[in-house]
């Protein structure tokens, strides 16, 4: 009996609204509202865009609050794992060795950088635009059959603009696809809609990297005679004029077929999806 009573009642918070409007009018009115929203996608009115940005901001930050306890629980499990990591001494030693090696590589790189700057000065080559990075927290990550998005905590208030690159430790992750007032959406490199110009410097080859939609990416428009090998590194070429050149994207994986024409290439991206917390948005320095 009580189940029937519950079945007749409605969702909390909206039941009072439903009571006031006749049920017969609800369905057509929601369909009409949905279509109005859809038609507004085509319009370019500033007021509508502002309203949408406001709605998006509101939803984004409320979802952030709702998700906080879930994130806390999932973070707790990973920190518990770390706490019970008994190989910590060995890991520490390994990391120290790695730091030493990286430091020596850094010194070497500094030498090459200075040499490069000197050569540029001699040849009269001007430096390209400088970029500044703005730190942003990822408050939501969403994937469906049509799109892959990250929602960031900064928007037009921090000067974020469409097309700007998002990176993590100098690894290219994607670009800004929608800007709201206090939040923005970034399209990940694996999104079906993502296309970026890339270069493989070790082979002198340019290509376009397209997202596959299933967590990977593929190279398009490779020259016919291009021969790539395993672990060839891919960087952004910057030829679109928006994304900074030289950002690491990933490395090549081949099936090692002897017949070069039949060889297939895939890309091992430089980051792992669903493991990102913070990113940087690259803006051109004015």
């Amino acid at each position, binding site marked *: 009996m009580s189940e029937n009573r519950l079945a007749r009642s409605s969702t909390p918070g909206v039941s009072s609204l439903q009571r006031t409007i006749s049920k017969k009018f609800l369905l057509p009115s929601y*369909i009409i509202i949905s279509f109005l929203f859809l038609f507004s996608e085509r319009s370019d009115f500033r007021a509508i865009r502002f309203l949408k940005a406001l709605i998006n901001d509101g939803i984004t930050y409320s979802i952030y609050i709702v998700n906080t306890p879930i994130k806390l629980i999932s973070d707790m499990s990973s920190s518990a794992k770390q706490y019970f990591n008994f190989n910590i001494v060995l890991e520490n030693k390994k990391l120290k060795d790695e730091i030493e090696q990286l430091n020596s590589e850094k010194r070497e790189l500094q030498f090459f950088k200075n040499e490069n700057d000197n050569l540029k000065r001699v040849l009269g080559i001007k430096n390209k635009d400088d970029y500044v990075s703005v730190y942003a927290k990822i408050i*939501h*990550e969403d994937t469906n*059959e049509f799109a892959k998005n990250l929602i960031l905590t900064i928007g037009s208030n921090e000067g974020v603009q469409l097309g700007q690159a998002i990176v993590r430790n100098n690894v290219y992750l994607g670009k800004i696809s929608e800007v709201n007032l206090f939040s923005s959406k970034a399209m990940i490199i694996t999104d079906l809609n993502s296309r970026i110009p890339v270069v493989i410097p070790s082979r002198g080859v340019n290509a376009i990297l397209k997202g596959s939609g299933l967590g990977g990416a593929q190279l398009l428009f490779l020259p016919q005679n291009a021969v790539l090998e395993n672990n060839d590194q891919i960087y952004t070429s910057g030829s679109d004029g928006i994304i900074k050149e030289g950002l690491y994207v990933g490395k090549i994986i081949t099936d090692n077929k002897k017949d070069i024409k039949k060889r297939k290439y895939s890309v091992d991206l430089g980051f792992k999806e669903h493991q990102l917390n913070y990113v940087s948005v690259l803006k051109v320095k004015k």
Partner: protein
Amino acid sequence: MNSFLEKIKFYSAHIIFTLICINDSIFINTWIAPGPIINIKYILIFYFCFFEKDRFSITFLFLIGLIFDSLQGMPFGMTSICFILLSKLASYLKKRRTQTNFQNEFVAFAISLLIVQIISVIILSNFSQIPFEYLLLAINIIVSLIFYPVIRTLLKVFYHY
């Protein structure tokens, strides 16, 4: 006390559905399978509207659809239309069947899912510039159909026994 527990049980469906909609990637892509290959939200709507048509109200589905669109960057209103359409299809197909067995239910789900995905493709191609791949969509439909009996059994055990 009993009625309180029943209330929690009743609204737990709303909570689970909302959490799945706002955490699509966390629940599905990292735990079950890589990539956007299964549509648990459609399975939930169909199941509850097929067996208890009053559980998810239209207002609730409309609002969750808007939230989902905002988070996923879809054209505003698309998911609301899909959710409402699916719920109406489920309750209509249930009404038309005089005998409800699993076979009929599965066929009804397949028909509804297909119609809803076709509608979403039509909306996407007319109101948005987001490209999509038919292969991905087909995988999504097939995997959702494969998983339907499993999820439906779990829901039936929890809510109807």
